[in-house]
Every structure is written in structure tokens, then in C-alpha cells.
């Protein structure tokens, strides 16, 4: 039967359909996943894999996380360059006089900065050196990350962390400083700005175009229907999970993200509120309306689609929450017990990572062979104070990531989870007094059993002010490694075929020959 909608009727019905409020927007957006995971006949999943992005928002000063330790003239005294550039913000060298932080010249308020921890080849072993023979140190708050890098004396080969040095957003490679100074190379748009650089790390498209999808979202567009083939008979669960709201990172053309909190799914109603509070009553009402099978209430396609999407979203949230609350056992290990024993801190990041472990542990129940998670950890925009703020942030990061990795391994999940860091940008080398300002290239790290640990890949920059890698303003380092190379290696492990890589990473062929035998950087075994 044809329906001739009058303008008045259309507006009236559209208004009814818009009954949802912005407070349920994130929940409704979870239904981008209502898109059909086609039960494909693809290669299926030979195993389950999870990729976890830990975004250090604000612009982490990674030159005080991983720093050059070398004082030998053969290596140009790299630590001395570091110490000169950072002045009062330099970490002290264990073999040299301590660096003094004097926040207020003219007073006696002088504080010796702590020593960095030398990175070794194994616990108590010889100093680690890269292919150029240079040695390195790590921030003193990172004792456990140091262990994950080095392995332990009992298990010297169990190295699960590597660093990627001198990495940042790039459109094309920059051969050297003079190439940058020529002004003839296309550069990422709006360098040094928070939102633009955050977006570019998450889209991997730094040309400044309006990109509405992130690289994990585009990967989901390709992988979800091909590899998550266990989802049949109307069961649908998305591939991408965010513990920090909606992000461009996990937004694809057809796939979206499932937004959760550290307590689980966002839900209209459910176990997280009291039965009679106003929000719960409102949510229950919405749910009843949306799940009412009598389509007479919904008199046009728009409303019917809205009703179905809302009902799907509620159902999916409840399915997720049920599994999340009672994850049971994985590989014979009780998930709750493993989380309790892992040593997470009772802080923001600890809660986020607990939720991450639960979400990974229930991936089989959710019928996911491929899964991504996004966790945001803020507080790194340290203009006004660096040393104490960063020490506290790194301390939490160190303790919680160590607990997280050990927990995954205790559950037998360590072999197929990789966690990697990202950040808006690195910071200037030069101290502005007590902090540092926005810059460009820095260091990241990647963690997990599949990682070829104990390595520093890339080409660690010279930290000399006005040196060959500094483009000015007190130590802005330009990148030698692009984010595309970093992500390409992760996606290759994750299952994106070389022929699909250009769809996920449009600029990758500026940096890496697709189909080459070796991965771009070589940090995955």
C-alpha cells in the first residue's frame, strides 16, 4: 500500500521518532553495529586477537620516559645533549653529578632530580645497546616496564615490551632537517595542536581533510564480517570497544564502537542503578516502548528502524553486561580471581584496565575473533609542572600495565593481545621553567607476548638543541618513523591483508612497500 505522507504528518512522525534524548546518545550510537555481520565464508579466524590502544592524551613528554644514557664520545655524548637540552628537567645520570632542579632561582629550594634506570639486556645483565651501539635509560617510575623490556633473571627471554623511537604523524618521509626547512614537503596540518594531532593519530590521515573514520574503524569494516564469523542467527556484537566514549579511532564507514565504562555497558536500565530512581524508571519506560513488538505504534519506516535499533542496542548492552559481570573462566582460570590477584591499583587507569581484561576475557562469549579496545589516560599536558606530575602518572601506568599484562598471561590470553601507546605529540626538549611545550615526534611503546621485546626500533633522535633533528623553538624533533608504519605492523599481525592496507592506511605506501617480506619496523615476532 502506498503512503502519501503530508508534510505535516512527516514532521509529526519525525518528531516522535526523535523522542530519544542526548543522554542516551552513546547507547544509541552503539547501534552502528546493528549493521550486519555477514556470516562470511572467509578464512575464519585461526585464533582470537585483540588490539588495545592506550592513548596518553595531552601529549606525553616521552623524552623523559626513554632517554639516551650514553656518555661516551663515540656516541656523541648523547646523554650530555639530553641533559643540556632539558636543563632542570633532565633525569640524573647514575654515574654523574645529579641534575639540580631549582624552581625559583634565588632561593635555597634546590632538589636533585632522580636517576634514570639503565635499560639492560636482561635483569642484572649488560647494558642494552641498539644497532648503533647506543645505550638507554627509562624513567625511575617505570621499574616494572623495565622488567617487561628486559625479562627477568629467571626468564631472561621473556621480553614483552619494545619501544618505537622518533615516531610521529607524517604525510611523506622527511629525509633530513634541510628537507624540512626547504618548505617543499607536505606536512601534517596544524602540527602542535591537541585536537588536530589527536585526530591524526587516530585517523592516520594527517593531510587535514575532514576524515570521519579512524583506522581501527576502517579495519573493522574489513575484518568484522570476514573474521568474526561465529556471529550468526541474529547475534550481533561489534568488533570495537571503547572505554572512553565515542572516538574517531574506532569509527568506520559501516562499523562503529561499543561504548562502555569501567563498570560495563551503558544501559537504559539494569543492575547499575536503584530500581526506583528517576533515571532507572525513565530507562525502563524507554526500553518498554522500544521493545514493544506491536509495530502499530511505529507507523513509518523511520520509526520502525529507530525502534529496532534501540531494541537491538538495549539487548546487546544486556548481553554484554551479563558476560561482563560474570566472566567465568578462561582456559581453566577464574577471571575474577585473576583480576583480584593481579595487583591493579584502585585508581582511574587500574579500573580501565580491569574492564579491558574483562572485555578481552569474554570475547569468546561475544563471538569475537577480532576485537579492538580503546583506553584514554589523560593528564600529560605538562606545561606548568613536569617532573612530579609525570612521575605520578608513570607510576600508575607502570603498576597497572604490569598487572594487566600478568593478568592476561595468567588467563592464557597473553599470546594474542597487543597493547600499544599513542599520544597527541611529544614535547619540546627545552624546559619552559617547570614544564615543556607542544612539539612533534617522540617515543611510544608496545606491549604483549607477540611483541619481539627488549628492542628499541626506529632511529632515536639526536637531542641536541639546534642539532640535526631539531627544527627549532627549543627542541622540536621531527619524526623519522611515521604512525603509518607503526599501525601497519599492528594491522598486519591483526589480519588486515597487504592488499587491504591502503584502504585502512591511505598513506602507507609513502613509507612502506606493501607485500614486502619484512614488516615495516620489526617489533612483532
Amino acid at each position, binding site marked *: 500500500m502506498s503512503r502519501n505522507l503530508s508534510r505535516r504528518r512527516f514532521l509529526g512522525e519525525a518528531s516522535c521518532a526523535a523522542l530519544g534524548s542526548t543522554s542516551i546518545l552513546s547507547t544509541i550510537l552503539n547501534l552502528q553495529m546493528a549493521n550486519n555481520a555477514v556470516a562470511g565464508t572467509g578464512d575464519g579466524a585461526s585464533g582470537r586477537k585483540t588490539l588495545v590502544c592506550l592513548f596518553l592524551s595531552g601529549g606525553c613528554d616521552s623524552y623523559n620516559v626513554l632517554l639516551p644514557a650514553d656518555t661516551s664520545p663515540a656516541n656523541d655524548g648523547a646523554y650530555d645533549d639530553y641533559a643540556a637540552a632539558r636543563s632542570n628537567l633532565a633525569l640524573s645520570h647514575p654515574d654523574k653529578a645529579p641534575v639540580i632542579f631549582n624552581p625559583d632561582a634565588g632561593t635555597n629550594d634546590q632538589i636533585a632530580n632522580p636517576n634514570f634506570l639503565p635499560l639492560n639486556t636482561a635483569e642484572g645483565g649488560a647494558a642494552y645497546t641498539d644497532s648503533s651501539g647506543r645505550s638507554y635509560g627509562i624513567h625511575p617510575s617505570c621499574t616494572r616496564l623495565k622488567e617487561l623490556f628486559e625479562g627477568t633473571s629467571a626468564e631472561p627471554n621473556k621480553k614483552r615490551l619494545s619501544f618505537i623511537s622518533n615516531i610521529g604523524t607524517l604525510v611523506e618521509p622527511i629525509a633530513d632537517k634541510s628537507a624540512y626547512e626547504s618548505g617543499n614537503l607536505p606536512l601534517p596540518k596544524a602540527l602542535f595542536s591537541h585536537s588536530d594531532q589527536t585526530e591524526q593519530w587516530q585517523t592516520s590521515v594527517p593531510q587535514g581533510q575532514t576524515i570521519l573514520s579512524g583506522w581501527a574503524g576502517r579495519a573493522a569494516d574489513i575484518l568484522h564480517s570476514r573474521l568474526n564469523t561465529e556471529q550468526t542467527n541474529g547475534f550481533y556484537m561489534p568488533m570495537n570497544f571503547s572505554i572512553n566514549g565515542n572516538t574517531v579511532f574506532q569509527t568506520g564507514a559501516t562499523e562503529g564502537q561499543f561504548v562502555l565504562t569501567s563498570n560495563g555497558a551503558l544501559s537504559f536500565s539494569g543492575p547499575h542503578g536503584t530500581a526506583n530512581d528517576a533515571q532507572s524508571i525513565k530507562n525502563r519506560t524507554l526500553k518498554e516502548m522500544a521493545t514493544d513488538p506491536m509495530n502499530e505504534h511505529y507507523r513509518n519506516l523511520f520509526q520502525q528502524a529507530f525502534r529496532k535499533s534501540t531494541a537491538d542496542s538495549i539487548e546487546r548492552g544486556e548481553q554484554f553486561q551479563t558476560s561482563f559481570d560474570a566472566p567465568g573462566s578462561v582456559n581453566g582460570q577464574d577471571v575474577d580471581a585473576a583480576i583480584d590477584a593481579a595487583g591493579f591499583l584502585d585508581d582511574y587507569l587500574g579500573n580501565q584496565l580491569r574492564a579491558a581484561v574483562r572485555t578481552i576475557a569474554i570475547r569468546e562469549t561475544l563471538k569475537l575473533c577480532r576485537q579492538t579496545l580503546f583506553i584514554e589516560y589523560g593528564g600529560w599536558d605538562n606545561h606548568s609542572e613536569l617532573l612530579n606530575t609525570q612521575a605520578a602518572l608513570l607510576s600508575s601506568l607502570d603498576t597497572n600495565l604490569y598487572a594487566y599484562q600478568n593478568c592476561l598471561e595468567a588467563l592464557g590470553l597473553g599470546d594474542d593481545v597487543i597493547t600499544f601507546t599513542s599520544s597527541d605529540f611529544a614535547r619540546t626538549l627545552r624546559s619552559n621553567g617547570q614544564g615543556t611545550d*607542544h612539539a612533534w615526534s617522540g617515543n611510544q611503546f608496545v606491549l604483549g607476548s607477540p611483541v619481539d621485546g627488549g628492542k628499541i626500533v626506529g632511529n632515536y633522535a639526536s637531542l641536541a638543541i639546534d642539532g640535526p633533528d631539531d627544527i627549532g623553538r627549543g627542541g622540536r624533533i621531527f619524526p623519522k618513523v611515521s604512525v603509518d608504519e607503526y599501525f601497519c605492523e599492528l594491522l598486519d599481525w591483526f589480519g588486515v591483508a597487504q592488499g587491504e592496507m591502503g584502504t585502512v592506511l591511505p598513506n602507507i605506501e609513502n613509507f612502506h612497500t606493501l607485500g614486502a617480506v619484512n614488516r615495516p619496523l620489526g617489533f612483532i615476532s
Partner: protein
Amino acid sequence: MITRKSIALLALTAALAVFFFWNRNTAPSELEQQPPIVTLPKPPPPKPEVPMGKLIGEKLLHQYASDDTTLRDDLQAISRLSLSYITLVKNHANHPVGCNADLADAFHGKNPHQQRFLPDRHKVFNDEGEMIDRWQTPLFIHPVSAGRWEIRSAGPDRKLWTGDDLQLLPNGTFVEGFTKN
């Protein structure tokens, strides 16, 4: 009766008529091709020097740090100048601004349009070319996104991140005191 004399007279008259008619359509003589001698008028006396138009930044900052304005006015004036900059220089994102000196450079004309917004010497600049507040302390410019900056003055104590700081956010509101970015 036509006499021979009459015929000769008639022939002479016709020949003269043809001669004069023919000569009328020929090119002018060489003498006639010479340009006329023109006497040029004397150059006018020099006009009095016209003052250069003020740059947009000079107009927007003409009362900057004066006794007639407040610190809030100063920060708003810098903000308005920034807005003019991003409005006029459409591809300003090609000149990344990460700090005070970058934005000052852009106002000096180091921007994709090479358009100058302020003269080299202006009371908003110190000798290093940075923008300063009314107490001569460099402003803190914090890039939030392309073309949106937080602008902070260290206040009378001339120390950033203390209680007398004043910061203008891109949405036009002010934040006082120590509040960090």
C-alpha cells in the same frame, strides 16, 4: 569652332586636375612624418607625503597595555587579532602555531599569505619577538586546535601558574588563577 589653342588649354587643365587629385592620396612627406615638437608641462610640485595605512593589528591593538584598558581588554584584543588572522589566512594550518613565537611570527608576516598584521616594532613584542603582556612577560599561547588558542598572562607577579594569572579561552571566557591547561 574649337581651335587648337582651346584643345591645348583643356588638356593642360585636365593634367593639372589629375596631378592635384593624385597628390592628395599619397603619403605625407618625410617632413610631415616628424612628430610634433611638444613642450612638456613642468612637473607638479611634490605632494605632501601620505601617511601609510595602519595594519590591522595596529588598529586592533592600538590601546594595548594602556592605562585606559585592562588586562582582560588586552587578551581580548590579541584574541580578536588571532581571529582576524585565521579569517584572512585561509590555509593558516600550514603555518603551525605551537607557542607564542610561532603566533608572533605569523603576525609579522611569516604565514602562508605573507600578510603582515603588525609591524616589526610594536609594544606587544619584546626584543625576542615574542608577544608580551603589560608587565613585559611573554604571553603563554596554548594551541587547542588549528586556529584556536588559549592566551594566558602571568599577571603582575610575572610568574606563570600562580594565583594572579589570567587566561582567555577560545570560547571567550576567562579563567583566573593557577588552573592548569
